[in-house]
C-alpha cells in the first residue's frame, strides 16, 4: 500500500471547476510525492480549498485528470477517496460531537456489516496514537465535544490513519492552535512523513510553510502559478509576489501613521461579558480611527461584534456610545444609533437571494426608512457616487441574483449597503473572506476614506497581515479576554501570534512563571522584546519588592520600565541596576524548530542572592518549552 518515499503519488492536471456563476478552478495542477510535505498556498479565493476538495472527493471536478499511483481516478464521494487512501483534515472538523474519541476514530467502520469489537478498536487506537507519539494526548473515552481543538485535530488524523490513508490533506490546520500545539502538530506531520505519507499543508501563514514544507505549489485566481518548487529555493517576498501577483506593499500603500486620537471615544466597551465565548472585553473606538480586533478563530471576536450590533445579549459589562449608556436590543436599534455591520457569513447573514441586486444594496436603507413606501428614488444620486467609488458598474444593479456575483462583488454590494446609511461606526467581520486581491485593495481604500471623513471603523480579521496593514490600533482578544491594546505600528505578525495564543497554554506557562518567581523569591515575566519596546505576555511576582507593575498585555518602552537597563543590555548574565537595586536575567526562548517564543525574565529584589546565570538559563528554556 505504501509507496516508496519520493515517488509520485498523485498528479492532478488542468483541473477545472465552476460553481454557480463562479469559476473556482481554471487549470489547476498539483503533483504530490510520497514522504513529502507539500504546501499549497494562495490568497483567499485562489482556489486552494477547492483543489483540496477535488483531490479528497468532496467536490467533483468539471474537467482535467487526476492520476493516483499511476491510475486515473474519478471520485464520486469522499468515501471513494477514503477507500483509496486519501483523507482530509478540515478546518471545521467532521467529527460527531456526541460520540467518544474511539468511536470517532473508527466512525467509517460503522458502515461495515456485523458487530463492532470495542476492545480491538481501542487497541488499534492506542497503537495509532503511539505511532504518532501522542499516547496520552487524549482520552479515548472523552466525548469529542469536551476536548480541545488541537485534540480534535489529533482525532481526525487518527481517523485518517485508521483507514490506512497515505495522502493526508491539512486545510489550515493551525488557524486556531497555540504555538505549542502547532509544534506538536508539526511533530506529528514529521512522523507521517517518515511513514512515507504524502502531506498537503494548506495555509497562509508563511513562516509555518517555511518551517514544515519540502515543496510549494502556489495558486492564484484558480490556476497554479508555481508548481512544486523546492521550499529552499523560495523566500517570503517571492512567495507573496507569486500569491498576489504583485508586491503586497502596494495593497496597503495608503497606510498612514497613527492618527492623533481624539479625547472622547465614540464607542466604549467596558468588561463585556456573554459566556461562554466573551469573558471580559474592553476597548475604546474613536472617530476617524480604524481599530482592529485580532485573535484566533473562536476567540470571541465575532461575538463582540454581535453584542455591539444587538444580535446577541450581553450578560454583563457596559457599553457607552458618545458617553451615553448604550444597550442595543436589536440590529434595528443599533442602526438607529448609527452603527453598521458587515457580517462574516455573507450567504447566511447578508445576502437576500430572492431580491434583486439593487434591492440587496438598498436593504439597510429599507430597514432604516420610516415611511410607508420605499424611498428608493431619493437615493439615486448617492448610489451612483458610491458605485463609482467602489468601481462597480451601475448596470450590474439590474441583475437579479447577487449569488451569481463573485465574492468580491458581493462584498462590495454589502459594504455599499451600509455606506449608504453613513454610519458613525462601521463594524466589519472578516470583510475580505473569499474576496480577490484586487477587490480587497478597493475595499481597503474606501474604508480608509470613510475613516478619514470621521467614521469609526472596527474590523475583525484573522489575517494578521491585513489587520496590521489596515488598522491604526489592534486590540488582541484571546479566549474571550481583551489582553492587549497596541498601536499596529508596534506589532508584527509574530508578536500578534504570541499575543493571540489561547489562554489554556497561558495557564501552563503561568505555572512555570509562578514556580520560577517563588523559587527565587522574585518576579518572573514572559514578554516579547524588540529594539525599544516590550510586550508583556504574562507576569507573576512572588516578592512585592520585585514587582514590576506589568500585567499581561501591557506594553512599554524600555526606559519606562523599572528594568530598562537590563532590557536594553540584552546580556546573558544578570544585570544589576544600582538605581533601584533590581537584578534581572533575560532568556530568549526558541522552540525546537527555531520559532521565537519570546523572552523570559527573572527579576530579583534588592539584596537577594543572585544564582549562577548559565545553569538557570538552560533550566528556564527547558521548562518553558514544555509549557508554552
Amino acid at each position, binding site marked *: 500500500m505504501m509507496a516508496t518515499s519520493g515517488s509520485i503519488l498523485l498528479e492532478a492536471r488542468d483541473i477545472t471547476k465552476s460553481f*454557480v456563476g463562479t469559476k473556482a478552478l481554471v487549470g489547476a495542477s498539483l503533483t504530490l510525492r510520497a514522504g513529502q510535505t507539500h504546501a499549497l498556498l494562495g490568497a483567499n479565493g485562489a482556489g486552494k480549498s477547492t483543489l483540496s476538495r477535488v483531490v479528497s472527493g468532496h467536490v467533483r471536478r468539471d474537467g482535467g485528470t487526476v492520476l493516483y499511483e499511476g491510475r486515473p481516478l474519478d471520485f464520486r464521494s469522499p468515501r471513494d477517496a477514503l477507500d483509496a487512501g486519501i483523507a482530509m483534515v478540515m478546518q471545521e472538523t467532521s467529527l460527531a460531537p456526541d460520540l467518544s474519541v474511539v468511536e470517532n476514530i473508527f466512525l467509517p467502520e460503522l458502515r461495515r456489516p456485523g458487530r463492532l469489537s470495542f476492545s480491538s478498536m481501542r487497541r488499534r487506537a492506542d497503537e495509532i496514537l503511539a505511532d504518532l507519539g501522542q499516547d496520552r494526548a487524549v482520552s479515548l473515552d472523552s466525548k469529542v465535544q469536551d476536548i480541545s481543538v488541537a485534540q480534535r485535530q489529533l482525532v481526525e488524523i487518527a481517523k485518517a490513519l485508521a483507514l490506512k490513508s497515505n495522502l493526508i490533506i491539512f486545510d489550515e490546520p493551525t488557524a486556531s492552535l497555540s504555538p505549542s500545539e502547532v509544534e506538536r502538530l508539526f511533530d506529528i506531520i514529521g512522523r507521517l512523513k517518515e511513514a512515507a505519507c504524502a502531506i498537503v499543508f494548506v495555509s497562509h501563514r508563511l513562516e509555518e510553510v517555511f518551517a514544515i514544507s519540502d515543496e510549494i505549489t502556489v495558486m492564484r485566481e484558480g490556476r497554479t502559478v508555481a508548481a512544486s518548487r523546492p521550499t529552499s529555493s523560495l523566500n517570503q517576498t517571492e512567495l507573496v509576489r507569486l500569491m498576489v501577483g504583485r508586491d503586497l506593499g502596494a495593497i496597503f500603500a495608503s497606510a498612514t501613521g497613527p492618527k492623533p486620537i481624539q479625547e472622547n471615544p465614540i464607542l466604549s466597551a467596558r468588561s463585556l461579558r456573554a459566556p461562554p465565548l466573551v469573558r471580559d472585553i474592553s476597548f475604546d473606538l474613536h472617530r476617524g480611527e480604524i481599530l482592529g480586533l485580532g485573535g484566533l478563530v473562536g476567540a470571541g471576536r465575532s461575538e463582540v461584534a454581535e453584542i455591539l*450590533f444587538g444580535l446577541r445579549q450581553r450578560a454583563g459589562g457596559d457599553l457607552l456610545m458618545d458617553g451615553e449608556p448604550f444597550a442595543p436590543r436589536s440590529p434595528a436599534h443599533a442602526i438607529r444609533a448609527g452603527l453598521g455591520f458587515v457580517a462574516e457569513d455573507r450567504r447566511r447573514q447578508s445576502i437576500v437571494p*430572492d*431580491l434583486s441586486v439593487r434591492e440587496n444594496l438598498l436593504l439597510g436603507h429599507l430597514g432604516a426608512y420610516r415611511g410607508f413606501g*420605499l424611498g428608493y428614488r431619493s437615493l439615486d444620486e448617492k448610489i451612483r457616487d458610491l458605485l463609482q467609488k467602489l468601481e462597480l458598474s451601475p448596470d450590474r444593479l439590474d441583475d437579479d441574483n447577487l449569488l451569481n*456575483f463573485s465574492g468580491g462583488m458581493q462584498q462590495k454590494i454589502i459594504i455599499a449597503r451600509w455606506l449608504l446609511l453613513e454610519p458613525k461606526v462601521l463594524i466589519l467581520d472578516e470583510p475580505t473572506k473569499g474576496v480577490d486581491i484586487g477587490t480587497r485593495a478597493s475595499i481597503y481604500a474606501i474604508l480608509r476614506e470613510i475613516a478619514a471623513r470621521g467614521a469609526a471603523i472596527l474590523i475583525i480579521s484573522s489575517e494578521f497581515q491585513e489587520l496590521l496593514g489596515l488598522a491604526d490600533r489592534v486590540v488582541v482578544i484571546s479566549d474571550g479576554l481583551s489582553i492587549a491594546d497596541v498601536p499596529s505600528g508596534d506589532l508584527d505578525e509574530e508578536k500578534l501570534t504570541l499575543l493571540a495564543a489561547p489562554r489554556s497554554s497561558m495557564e501552563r506557562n503561568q505555572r512555570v512563571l509562578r514556580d520560577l518567581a517563588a523559587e527565587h523569591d522574585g518576579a518572573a515575566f514572559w514578554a516579547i522584546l524588540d529594539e525599544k519596546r516590550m510586550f508583556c505576555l504574562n507576569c507573576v511576582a512572588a516578592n512585592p519588592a520585585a514587582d514590576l507593575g506589568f500585567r499581561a498585555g501591557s506594553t512599554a518602552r524600555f526606559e519606562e520600565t523599572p528594568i530598562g537597563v537590563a532590557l536594553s543590555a540584552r546580556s546573558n548574565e544578570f544585570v544589576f541596576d544600582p538605581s533601584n537595586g533590581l537584578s534581572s536575567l533575560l532568556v530568549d526562548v526558541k522552540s525546537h524548530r527555531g520559532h521565537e517564543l519570546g523572552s523570559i525574565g527573572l527579576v530579583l529584589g534588592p539584596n537577594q542572592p543572585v544564582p549562577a546565570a548559565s545553569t538557570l538559563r538552560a533550566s528556564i528554556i527547558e521548562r518553558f518549552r514544555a509549557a508554552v
Partner: protein
Amino acid sequence: MTPTTRSTAPEMNRAPRSYLKAFSRLEVRMLGLALVIAIALSILSPYFLRTANLLNLLDQSVVVGIVAIGMTFVILTGGIDLSVGSVAGLTGVVLGLSLHHFPIPVSVFLAVLSGAAIGLFSGFLIAYFDLAAFVITLGVMAIGRSLAYIFSGQTSITDIPPEINDLVYTTLFGIQSNVLTLLALYALAWAYLTYTKGGRTIYAVGSNREAARTAGLSVLFYSILPYVISGALSAVAATLMSAQILSIDPLAGNLLELDAIAAVVIGGASLYGGRGTIIGTLIGVFIMVMIRNGLNLLGVSPFWQGSAIGGIIIAAVLAERLLSPKVRR
C-alpha cells in the same frame, strides 16, 4: 484598481438575458399555461367562452381568490396557514350572530376583526416563539371549526337580512361587486408587495430571515402581519360567501385551505419563502377554477376533479423544479 480585476471576476452572459428573463418569469409561463387551458376548453366546449360562463368563472374565483391573497403573504414569509378554511367558517358564524344584534356594516367589521385577531394569535405564536407554522395553524384549524359548531348551535344560520345580498350583486359596468372586490384586493395586494417597505420586507424575511434582521428590518412584525392579513381576508371571503347564499353553515370553507395553497403554488410561489407574486397567484386561481368549470362543462364526473387539480399541482411544481435555471438549495 485596474479594469483587469473586473474582467477576471466571473460575469454572467448578459446579452440574451432580456429574452430569457421574460421567459423565465414564472407568471409569464403560467399565463401561457392558463391560455392553453382556456383555448383547449373553448375548443372542447362551445359554452366555455360565452359571456355568462366567463362571468361565472370570475364569480367562482372570488372566495378562493381572496383567501389565496392572504395565503400568498404567509407563504412568502416561508410560513403556511392551514386554518383559513375553518377561520372562514368561524368568522361566518360570527357574522351571522352579529347580524342578530347589529346592522350589516358593524357585523361585517366584527367578522373581519375576529378573523384578524385569530391571525394575530397564530402569527404571534409562530413568529415570537419560533414555532412551526404548520403545527400552530393545524391546531387553530381544529379549534376554529370546533368553535364554529359550538357558536352556531350545530345548524345553519339562515335568518339573516336579505339586503346583505347587495354586497355580492350590486353591479358596476355589468360586473358583480364580489368580483370587483376580488380585483380591487388583488390590485391593493400587488401594490403593497411591490411598492412598499412592508411588502419588500415580507420578501426579504422569507428569503433570508437572518439577513433581514441584520439589515435592521422589523422581522417580528412582518412575520406576524401576513397571518393577520390571512385571517382578515378569510373573514372577507366568508362574508361574501354568506351574502351570496344567504345562509351560514358552520362547515363553510371546509378544505378551502387546500385550494388556496394549490393556487399559490401553481402561481409559482416557493414554499421555502421569498419567491412568488400576487399576479402569479391570481393566475393560479384562474387555472384551478377553469379546470373545475371545464370538467363540469364536459360532463366529467366530479369525482375526477380532485385528480385533475392534484395532477396540475404536482405538474406545476415539477415543471418549476425542472425548468428553473438553478436549483435552490
